[in-house]
């Protein structure tokens, strides 16, 4: 047990950063799922990763988070704005799924090719983009905590808009006209900010895990929209805390253990909900 506290002294910053990240990623995943857009969580992180690799190739300092982060945000936002909207008419729902698969492949391939072309890049960002390390220092953590608190406050204040976007985007745009269109753009920007933060600080796999797994296990159990959002947030946060503790105790890589913990916590919550009727 003393080893646990010793390791925690060295790893509490990424631990706290990932727990903090869960507070925004899990509810974003629920909103994306309601919009039939959860595959964006699969397709867009490789795009962000490719942008980070490109930025490092072009000379950006790999230890300088802000330029890398905004490179990823810009690439993710650009691609997400080019994609057709959710619940598109007729066959374009199917087309959208194929398109997202193509975006995933292109992003992964570009990341691998650029990494292979530059051993310096490979050495600096390979582990980070595989989610094998969680790249956050103490100074970044406090900024991250403040930004997370601000994001949660903005999302809570605009939760009606978020729910309306999630349930019926077209109805919202008809109702609010330009204001509704600005709401759609705001959602895209917020999604890009959150997904890019995940790519750079917890890795693409945990980003997708936090977007998808809490929603997968809780959406069918939730009884109202507020309950959906609080449930997935709690599952995401508790999954990260449990996963990190288990990873330290068993000396295992944190990301896969956190994902296993998300399934465990979400599954337990779903079973408890079933038993309560």
């Amino acid at each position: 047990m003393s080893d646990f506290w010793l390791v925690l002294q060295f790893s509490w910053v990424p631990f706290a950063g990932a727990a903090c990240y869960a507070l925004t990623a899990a509810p974003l995943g629920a909103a994306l799922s309601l919009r039939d857009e959860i595959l964006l969580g699969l397709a867009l992180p490789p795009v962000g990763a490719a942008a980070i690799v490109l930025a490092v190739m072009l000379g950006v300092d790999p230890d300088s988070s802000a330029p890398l982060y905004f490179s990823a945000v810009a690439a993710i936002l650009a691609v997400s704005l080019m994609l057709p909207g959710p619940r598109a008419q007729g066959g374009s729902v199917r087309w959208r799924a194929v398109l997202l698969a193509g975006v995933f492949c292109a992003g992964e391939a570009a990341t691998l090719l650029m990494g292979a072309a530059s051993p310096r890049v490979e050495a600096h960002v390979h582990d980070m983009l595989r989610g094998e390390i969680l790249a956050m220092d103490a100074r970044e953590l406090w900024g991250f905590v403040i930004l997370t608190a601000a994001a949660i406050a903005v999302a809570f204040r605009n939760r009606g808009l978020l729910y309306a976007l999630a349930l019926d985007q077209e109805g919202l745009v008809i109702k609010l006209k330009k204001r509704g269109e600005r709401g759609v753009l705001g959602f895209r920007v917020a999604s890009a900010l959150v997904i890019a933060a995940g790519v750079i600080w917890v890795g693409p796999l945990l980003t997708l895990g936090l977007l998808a797994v809490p929603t997968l296990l809780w959406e069918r159990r939730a009884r109202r929209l507020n309950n959906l959002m609080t449930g997935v947030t709690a599952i995401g946060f508790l999954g990260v805390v449990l996963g990190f503790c288990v990873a330290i105790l068993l000396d295992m890589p944190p990301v896969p253990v956190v994902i296993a913990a998300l399934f465990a916590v979400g599954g337990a919550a779903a079973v408890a909900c079933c038993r309560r009727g």
Partner: protein
Amino acid sequence: MTGRPLLEVRDAAWGYRLAGGWFTPAVPVSFTVSSGEIVLLSGDNGSGKTTILRGILGLVDQRAGEVAWGIESSGMGYVPQESVIDRSAPATALDVVRSGHPHRWGRGLDGARSALSMVGLEGKEDVLYGSLSGGQRQRVLMARALVGDPRLLILDEPTVNVDAGTAGQVGRLLQDLAATGLGMVITSHVRDWIRAAREVRVTAAGEAVHE
């Protein structure tokens, strides 16, 4: 009918841009809607009713004619087909109604309950939208449109997924709402479910149109 019409459509047609030019499904239509009046855009499947409706809402390019609004856009409520909201979403009837006035989510609870009551769904507030019947889901969407106190309702095929009895109930509900002064434009491929409506027959492009 008194004062300026809520909506006036004159020889208007809407269409979609295709690779070879424009596709305009319906011939131009003309009609006006005033307070308390129901206009029913009727026609066969594929005649272009939904294109006209979406054109009025600004979602399809206008190719001819004029559309004049006598109200602000905030005075218009839109009721889509009930299938527009995913039935597996964990949203209650109250959640869906409140989403009709998203900037007042925290303060709009009473208005949302009142709107549900207006459409005969009191007691269903906490029931999941997807577990309601087709007719009830349609009424939830009507309640959603009513929370902003609109003067004009635009409804897309409100009886498309309901049986004849439920369609009659929806028709009576809309007539009751019209009696309070609400104007309405409704598309439907059948006519007999609502009696107090003025019919505008929509026909596919190339055929005549009459009011």
